[in-house]
């Protein structure tokens, strides 16, 4: 049944306006991340491999909660950044390229292949005190954004919130404003 005809039929299926509103809300919020798996396409293979390694370092699995890789954070960021305005794309593309370039120059291998100790040296900007002044150097700027984005992509995932619920948490609940007529 095409969506419009289905929506027109809904009033006959629901006894109260509240139930009707909930039903329409569910239609509008189809949860595609529960089905299938994402297909990364924005970052290059080398960039995406670096992002996966970085994601695992920034949010590892711990304390019964999934890490960034379990939560599909790199795949989600590939989708998000790929749709973002140019400045955000430049931050990620330049930063991931810089990460690989620094890694290759220092260790002769891509960031995806470095061990934790080697990675820590490359991620030295994350050990600097945060200030309101954004850095201008590409790697530092990228790491600043990634340090915020990877945890958010992780903790807002179905996997992380499901784990939170098991721990009696109530993360991920919000009040969504439906689109106006």
């Amino acid at each position, binding site marked *: 049944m095409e969506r419009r005809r289905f929506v027109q039929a809904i009033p006959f299926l629901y006894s109260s306006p509240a139930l009707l509103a909930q039903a329409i809300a569910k239609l509008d919020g189809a*949860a595609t991340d529960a089905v299938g798996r994402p297909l990364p396409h924005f970052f290059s293979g080398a960039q995406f491999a670096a992002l996966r390694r970085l994601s695992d370092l920034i949010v590892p699995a711990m304390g019964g909660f999934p890490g960034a890789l379990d939560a599909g954070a790199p795949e989600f960021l590939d989708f998000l950044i790929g749709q973002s305005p140019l400045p955000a794309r430049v931050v990620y593309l330049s930063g991931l390229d810089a990460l690989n370039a620094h890694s290759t120059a220092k260790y002769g291998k891509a960031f995806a292949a470095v061990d934790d100790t080697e990675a820590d040296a490359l991620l030295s900007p994350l050990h600097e005190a945060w200030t309101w002044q954004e850095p201008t150097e590409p790697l530092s700027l990228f790491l600043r954004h990634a340090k915020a984005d990877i945890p958010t992509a992780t903790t807002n995932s179905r996997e992380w919130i499901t784990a939170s619920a098991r721990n009696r948490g109530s993360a991920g609940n919000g009040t969504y404003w439906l689109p106006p007529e």
Partner: protein
Amino acid sequence: MAHTLTAKGIKCLMLDAGPPIDYDHDRVPRKVYDLPYRGFGQPGRFPHVTQADEFNANVWADEKQNPYTYDAADPYYWVRVRRIGGRTLVWGRASWRLSDYEFKAKDHDGFGDNWPISYSDLAPYYDKCEPIFRVSGRKEGFAQLPDGNFIEDKSPDSVSMMRFIGAAKARGVPTTKPRRATGSLASSLNLLLPDALATGNLTVVPNAVVRQLTVDKNTGLVNGADFVDRHSRQERHAEARIVVVGAGCLESTRLLLNSGTANSSGVLGHYLFDQFYVKGTVQAVVPEARDGKGGADLMGGSGYIPRFRNIDSKAQDFIRGYSVDFGSGGTPGAKYFPHYGEALQKAVASHRGAGFDATTMGSVLPRFENFVSIDPTIVDAWGVPALHIQAKYSDNEFNMARDAMNTLAELCHDAGFEVLEKHDQMVPPGESIHELGTCRMGDDAKTSVLNKWNQSHDIKNLFVVDGSSFVVGGSQNPTLTILALSMRAGDYMAEQMRAGSL
């Protein structure tokens, strides 16, 4: 305004650019992972609305449908809501009165102009507005922050709050409880419109995008408005004996500019200002509250520092002053900790509930050179010419922000808090959503657009009742003053109608 007029038996037609909203049914619970962008929001949808998130995205005016321009060097964040109820659907509810430090600001420091009214003119209307919006607060007797008709806030202060308040008092910095509208919703949608509709005197027309006001060439009076149906794009005209514009500061001025009316003074669009915000001016930690040791006795609560500079003494490098919202018991953001991975998660966990933070809101000087005009190159989705906004802050604001940063850091130190970060970087003009001026009041028709009754100097049956009428704003959130001015203008208008003058 409609609330006041309809209660007096006056028939009102309200044209609203937005759709109606059923607050109970148009908002639904949802999990963040069920949103298309996991809570990040659709990239690029709201470049100027930092308040937008993926849950509330549909409440804000679409920036592509409602464009505006500014010079690249001076960005302006114009935050709008186009739904019935407007920005009162999502406001922060802070409800402060202005004082004669604002109404008669020029008398205190010689800058700019005074309002044409005094605090005593508006006080009776503040008295009426506060009960409608169920404002809670604590009476203090501050001359610069008059007390109101409050629901008394008797909540106790936590130990950390008492330490900060004590540190402030020792340096002569006053504090008080927040003054806020209470209730599950504190909007014109539920507190004003229902009463007005119940009189039978109000007709609300949603989705009516007003293009321009129309003027009777014979009388020079406004006689109605041309508007566009938001959905069908049909052009329509509504007639009126009196026109009241209350579209929100810059939208009202845009409408008058597009109408080519009410500007014999040449100041329509000028003297744009707001309150500057320095969000998270200080982020501190209460050391004893680390590692889960901060119970309800030690942590929690919020407070407010009213303006204290240039009251009893003179600041060195700025006039007027700033206010501060402060709170205890939050968790400092992960960005403040120079770690990642497990170390970062442990650091955040260690500081959970141990934070203290303060945000500065500063008075911005109204300047002629900050202004809006019609951009001849761009129209909105309904073909209505859009605004160009030119605004930037001056040394007075920058110096004030620096003083706030240093003062707050000192107070935190005195209170025994550890400051993680302090800064004085303001958000761009407009982001506070407190845009004011551009259609200001005054006694002199050559230097102001409105008289002291929010009535056009040029066209006596035209009133403007929003933040655009402000002459000076202070550091207080403006909503309560906008309400009081509107109610006062309504009383005046009704009396003029009764007397046959309108």
